[in-house]
C-alpha cells in the first residue's frame, strides 16, 4: 500500500524530479528575464496589455505628483539600479548573488516612480543587452516592474505598520520586501511559462519557487546592507514616501496580490491540469493550424511533396540568400573604393 502510494507520487511528479536539477541551473544563471520564443503569442500579448495598463496608470500618477526635479533623479536612479546589478558577491562554487533592485527602488522613492524606473531598466536590458526578449518584454515588465514593485511595497508597508518604528523594523521590512518581490515575481514568470505550454506547471512552479527562495535571500541580505548604510549616512532618505490616506489601497493591493499568488501557485502546481487546459486554449494558434489549413487535404507547396525535401530546399535557398548578400557587399565596397 505504502509502496503503491510512493509509486504514484513518483509517477505524478516524475517530470518534477527530472526537471528540477536542470531548471535550477538555468534559473540560477538567468534570474527571471524570459527570452523570446518561450511565451505563446497570446500570453505575450495579454501581459503586454496588462503591463501597459499598469505603467500607463503609474505615468499619470507620477506626472501629477512629481516636480520637474524628479526627471533627472529617476533617470540617474535607473542607472544606479542598472549599475548596481554589477555589484555581486560570491556565494559558492562559482555562483554569485547580485541585486535586482525593485524593492530598494520602491522603499527609497515610493511605488509609482519605482514602477517607471524598473520599466526603463527592464526595457533597456531587453532592447540593448538581450536580457529578456522583445515580444516577451510585456511579461517581463509585468513581473519585475509591476508585480515586483507592488509586492515589495505591500510587504514593506505591512511590516512597518505592525512593528514599532525602530531601526530593526526597517531592516526586517526591507529584507522581507526584497525576498517576497523576487519570489512572487518568479511565480508569475512560472505561471506564464506554464500558460504558454513551454514548461509543465508542476515543474516550472516548484522549481522557480525553490530556486528564487534562495536567490531572494541574497537580494534580501543586500537590501539590508544597503538600508543599514543609508540609515547611517542619509537617514532622511528612508522617511515615508506615501501621501497619507490614499496610499492604503496601493500597499494593500500589493499585499493581496502577493497572498493570492502565494496561495494559487501551489494549487496550480498540484493540479496542473487546469493550467494545461488554459495553455491548450491560449495555444490555439498552434492548435488551430491543423483544421484551419487542412481545407485542401495534404496540400503542400506546389511541386514539393514532402516536408524533408522542403527543409533541404529551404537550406539551399537560405545559403543562396546569404551568398547573395555577401556578393552585394563586396560589390558595394568595390564600387565605393573605385569611386
Amino acid at each position, binding site marked *: 500500500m505504502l509502496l503503491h502510494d510512493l509509486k504514484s507520487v513518483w509517477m505524478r511528479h*516524475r*517530470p518534477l524530479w527530472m*526537471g528540477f536539477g536542470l*531548471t535550477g*541551473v538555468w534559473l540560477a544563471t*538567468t534570474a527571471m528575464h524570459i*527570452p*523570446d*520564443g*518561450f511565451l505563446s*503569442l497570446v500570453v505575450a500579448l495579454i501581459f503586454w496589455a496588462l503591463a501597459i495598463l499598469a505603467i*500607463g496608470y503609474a*505615468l499619470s500618477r507620477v506626472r501629477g505628483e512629481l*516636480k*520637474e526635479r524628479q*526627471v*533627472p533623479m529617476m*533617470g*540617474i*536612479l535607473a*542607472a*544606479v539600479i*542598472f*549599475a*548596481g546589478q*554589477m555589484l555581486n*558577491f560570491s556565494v559558492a562554487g562559482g555562483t554569485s548573488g547580485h541585486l535586482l533592485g525593485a524593492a530598494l527602488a520602491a522603499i527609497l522613492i515610493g511605488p509609482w516612480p519605482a514602477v517607471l524606473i524598473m520599466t*526603463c531598466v527592464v*526595457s*533597456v536590458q531587453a*532592447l*540593448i*543587452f*538581450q536580457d529578456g*526578449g*522583445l*515580444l516577451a518584454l510585456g511579461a517581463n515588465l509585468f513581473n519585475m516592474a509591476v508585480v515586483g514593485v507592488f509586492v515589495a511595497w505591500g510587504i514593506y508597508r505591512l511590516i512597518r505598520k505592525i512593528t514599532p518604528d525602530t531601526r530593526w523594523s526597517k531592516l526586517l521590512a526591507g529584507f522581507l520586501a526584497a525576498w517576497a518581490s523576487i519570489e512572487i515575481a518568479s511565480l508569475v514568470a512560472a505561471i506564464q511559462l506554464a500558460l504558454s505550454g*513551454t*514548461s*509543465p506547471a508542476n515543474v516550472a512552479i516548484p522549481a522557480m519557487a525553490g530556486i528564487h527562495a534562495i536567490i531572494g535571500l541574497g537580494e534580501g541580505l*543586500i*537590501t539590508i*546592507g*544597503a*538600508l*543599514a*548604510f*543609508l540609515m547611517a549616512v542619509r537617514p532622511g*532618505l528612508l522617511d515615508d514616501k506615501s501621501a497619507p490616506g490614499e496610499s492604503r489601497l496601493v500597499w494593500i493591493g500589493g499585499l493581496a496580490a502577493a497572498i493570492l499568488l502565494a496561495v494559487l501557485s501551489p494549487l496550480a502546481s498540484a493540479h496542473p491540469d487546469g493550467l494545461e487546459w488554459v495553455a491548450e486554449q491560449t495555444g490555439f*494558434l*498552434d492548435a488551430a*493550424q491543423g483544421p484551419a489549413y487542412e481545407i485542401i487535404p495534404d496540400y*503542400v*507547396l506546389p511541386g*514539393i511533396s514532402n516536408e524533408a525535401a522542403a527543409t533541404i*530546399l*529551404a537550406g539551399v535557398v537560405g*545559403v543562396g540568400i*546569404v551568398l547573395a*548578400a555577401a556578393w552585394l557587399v563586396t560589390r558595394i565596397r568595390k564600387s565605393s573604393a573605385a569611386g
Partner: protein
Amino acid sequence: MHAHPFDPYVPTASPVHALDPRIKLALVLSFLLGVALTPHGAWAALILFFASLMAAVVLSGISPWRILRRSLIGLPFALAAFPLLFTTAGAEWFSFHAGSWTITATGEGLRRFLSIALKSWISVQAALLLSAATPFPDLLLALRAFRVPQLLVSVIGLMWRYLFVLADEAIRLMRARDARSGIEPGRRPGGGVIWRARVAGGMAGSLFVRGFDRADRVYAAMLARGYDGETRALPAPPVAPVQYAVLAAGCVWLALLILIGILVH
C-alpha cells in the same frame, strides 16, 4: 554618448546602418512576430528566417561570429523547456530506465523542445543585430515615433547617459573591495556568505548615495541651462519613401516565410 565596453553598437557604414531607425525597429518587431507565428516543427521556414537574418548581418558588415557568439547567452534558458521532451504525449522516441521506472521521451516532445530553442535563438540574434547596428539616440527617436510616452523616453535617455558613469562608479567600488581584501591561496577571502552579502549591500547603498548626489548636481546644471521640466527634441526627420518601400518589401517577405511555415508544415 561614450564608447564603453558595454555599448553593443558597432559603428560601420552599411545599408543596414543607414536604414531609418523607425523602419529598423518595425522590421525587427515584425521579424520576431513572424518567428513567433511560425508553427512548431516548421524547419523549412525557420531555416529561411535564419538565412534572412544572416543575410542582413552580412549586409551590415558586422562579423556574423560576433552575433553568433553573443546569441549563445540565451541558450541556458532552453532548459526551461527541456521537461517537454518527456511530458509531451506522442509516439515513443526512446526510453531509459532510472531505478525501476521507465522514462520515455517522445518524438513530439523533441519537436516542441527543438522548435522553442531554435525560435528563441533566432529571435535573440535579431535583437542583437538591432542593437549592434543602431546607435542609442536613434533608438530613442524610434521609441518616440512608436508613441512611447515622453516621460519614459526622457528617463531612458538620462539613464543611458549616466549608465556608464555609474558603471564606472560600481567598478571603482569593486576595485576598492578587492584592494581591501587580502587573498591567501587556499582560503576564501572575507567572512561568511552573509557577511559578504552585507558588504555588497553597503556598496549598493553607497552607489545610491552617489547617485542621489549626482542627480542633485545634474538637476542644478540643467536648471542653469534653462530646464523647465520639458524635454525637447528636434522634430523627427520624415521617413524617406525608399525606406517605406524597404519596410513593405520586408513585411511581404516575412509574410511569405510564415505562409511557407504553415503550408509545408
